[in-house]
């Protein structure tokens, strides 16, 4: 699965429009993921996962920042996320199946906040982009 020039343009434009709301989207993505896929909470036993949790907001901000960084370096996502890839392989070891769940929730957040942004073409490009990010983050697992 390869990101075409069109995909890259769609992703960059989408994140451009999302702009400063990315942090908020990150937090809501996590909130939705914990609600819809309770098994994902097992990676956060040390967090308060209650509504409005500052820890979830903080972590959502980190997740969003990584997505923005990937989008801004879309020609070399592996390079841009290399340290995060190491972290996930060596320390976090989040099972690869969970990246799809996070991706689904991120798309739902975009759809819910900005439906006109998520045309079918942009939906396709963002889905591919999120897959690519997941692939990079799990690339060094074994």
């Amino acid at each position, binding site marked *: 699965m390869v990101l075409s020039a069109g995909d890259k343009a769609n992703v960059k434009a989408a994140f451009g429009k999302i702009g400063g709301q990315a942090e908020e989207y990150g937090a809501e993505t996590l909130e939705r993921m914990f609600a819809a896929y309770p098994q994902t909470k097992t990676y956060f036993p040390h967090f308060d996962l209650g509504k409005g949790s500052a820890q979830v907001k903080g972590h959502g901000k980190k997740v969003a920042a990584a997505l923005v960084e990937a989008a801004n370096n879309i020609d070399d996502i592996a390079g841009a996320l290399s340290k995060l890839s190491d972290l996930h392989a060596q320390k976090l070891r989040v099972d690869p199946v969970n990246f799809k769940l996070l991706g689904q929730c991120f798309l*739902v957040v975009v759809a819910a906040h900005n439906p006109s942004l998520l045309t079918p073409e942009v939906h396709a490009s963002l889905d591919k982009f999120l897959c690519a990010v997941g692939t990079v983050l799990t690339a060094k697992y074994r």
Partner: protein
Amino acid sequence: MVHWTAEEKQLITGLWAKVNVEECGAEALARLLIVYPWTQRFFDNFGNLSSPTAIIGNPKVRAHGKKVLTSFGEAIKNLDNLKGTFSKLSELHCDKLHVDPENFRLLGDILVIVLASHFTKDFTPACQATWQKLVGLVAHALARKYH
């Protein structure tokens, strides 16, 4: 045995009452074919699927989307018996249509995104969680008779 809380049932039926099944079904199927192009393999006889615009405007896609989502509506009327409701359709998808059940999961996720875009802030995390549960159970029921 599936268990639905009263709140979950309300989140499902309440939202469904406001869904335009034809529009929503058409959009969900079109997005499936666009976002996951390999799913087009089941629709060789649908004519022009060469671009997102062609897919969205394709009358067979619209009609089939409506059919699929109408069937989904049956699930909602029978939340306590999804297995029974989809038993024959499960056999059909296995024996005649030869559809990999993974496609039901893909369509379910797309449907959730379409609902989110239509209902925006009303599609709360609790609402999404309930609908992810429903689409997962429908996919499971449709896969149940596979052999």
